[in-house]
């Protein structure tokens, strides 16, 4: 569904990514794990068009179409939604309006079915429908950010650190919901610092270190890998 080939990205003179190549197949959950500053978020931002690769031989293909260099809103229209790091809900808008904004890229008004789909995964959002998004708790904001992305009916959902700043109980809940969304037919690419949980729910994973992919494989293999256990699972 999504392939990246030899992506380089630089912030000014600092190179953040060196030749990243990865693949996400239809129906999978793929995790991208690594330490702070490894380039995980940069990778996601490049996929969704917020950043541009610096080399010409790089290639990003989504549903067999080259999306590299396309504007972010065009990429969303193609069915790729990005839940940015730190949730980034629209604080002065109500939960309902936030969800409505999520459907902005689609022609015509979103139907009740779209809202119901979001409420099915996040019943708590339905209770808070009129509340301003800025007054929600961190976990609820994360749910809203994901719900907002679902409103675009994406085929591929990319999530940046969904567990950031959340209580352990909530993190578990969010991860269960991610699995549910995947079962309901959405492919997921996930960036996560909590490698343990990420490997638990994903099919495959890539390990990023200072802008390069150092390891890739099935999630359960990585979870038992000695180096990984030492470096990322704290054992």
């Amino acid at each position, binding site marked *: 569904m999504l392939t990246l080939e030899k992506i380089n990205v630089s912030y000014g003179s600092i190179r953040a990514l060196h030749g990243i190549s990865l693949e996400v197949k239809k129906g999978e959950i793929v995790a991208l794990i690594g330490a702070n500053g490894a380039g995980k978020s940069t990778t996601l931002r490049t996929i*969704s068009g917020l950043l541009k690769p610096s080399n010409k031989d790089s290639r990003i293909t989504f549903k067999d179409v080259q999306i590299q260099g396309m504007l972010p809103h065009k990429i969303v229209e193609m069915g790729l*939604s990005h839940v940015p790091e730190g949730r980034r809900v629209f604080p002065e808008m109500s939960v309902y309006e936030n969800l409505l*904004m999520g459907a*902005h*890229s689609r022609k015509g008004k979103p139907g009740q079915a779209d809202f119901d789909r979001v409420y099915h995964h996040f019943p708590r959002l339905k209770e808070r429908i009129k509340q301003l998004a800025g007054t929600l708790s961190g976990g609820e904001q994360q749910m809203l950010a994901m719900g907002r992305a679902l409103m*675009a009916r994406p085929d591929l959902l990319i999530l940046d650190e969904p567990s950031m700043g959340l209580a352990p109980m909530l993190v578990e809940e969010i991860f269960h919901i991610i699995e549910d969304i995947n079962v309901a037919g959405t492919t997921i690419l996930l960036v996560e610092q909590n490698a343990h949980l990420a490997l638990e729910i994903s099919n495959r994973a890539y390990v990023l270190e200072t802008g390069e992919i150092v390891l890739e494989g099935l999630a359960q293999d990585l979870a038992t890998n000695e180096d990984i256990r030492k470096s990322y699972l704290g054992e």
Partner: protein
Amino acid sequence: MKKLLNNWIVQVLLFLSLLGLTAYGSQMINDIIPPYLLMIAFFIGINLIMALGLNLITGVTGQLSLGHAAFMSIGAYSSAIATVNFDLPFLLGVLIGGLIASVFGVIIGFPTLRLTGDYLAISTLGFAEIVRVQFTNMKITNGAIGFLGIEGSTTFPIVMTIAVLMICLMVWLENSRNGRAMLAIREDEVASSAVGINTTLYKIQAFAIGAFCAGVGGALFAHTTTFIQPTDFGFQKSVDILSIVVLGGLGSIPGTIIGAIVLTAAPEILRPLSNYRMIVYGLLLVVIMIFRPYGLMGGVNLRQAVRRAMMFPKKKQAGREE
């Protein structure tokens, strides 16, 4: 009742009758009140039209612009040239003023799109200075001497009707798909792109519509004072309009209306203080911003407030009786 209000025919009828009422009412006022008060009312209307435009750019879309006077001057000069040099009818001149300002809004919008906040403010300020210097040195505008001989065609009903028209346009825009997208850009630009909003398109739209309002306001201004010169449209003018928007409450249409009334009338009401007038005026601004840091109507959702006022009094009374 709600269903009836959602019918577009009813909406159009309401809109037309509102315009008719405004025209009729302002004609009555025009005949009754003394010329001095009428002049203040004129400028309230003109400032309101321009402030509504800036409210869309700065208040709703969140793009800080210090160059609103430039769009006003473009509207003023181009409408004056249209009516004086080309003998076009007054209202067509106003429209031309608005449209040309709008074109410049798009032109200034493009290169400055990558800038936000302070940087955008400085570059719009630069743009405004370029426009002012340009008008000072052009032959057709009669340079620093000023443009003379514009007919005083603006009437109070025209100002008020256009103001109400603009208010309706802004209210409609605020509740439209485009308006929500602009609001989302103010709230969080990265998140806006992530949900698929074409941020470039909507920023340019905001600049185009905002500049149109300023141009129309400038055109009305030119045909009120009958004489314009480049110094009328300096940095001070941009700041005046920005103050209206900020003091009223960024993004709030009722706030902009109140801001335009208060800030246009205040210098006149304070006139008896003679030399101390501007000191008190400045003090007033400071005091309002201390007590209402988000502006007079900032953070007030009028629709919710009205609903609350209509629904809760009974409950409150019941509580008091206990």
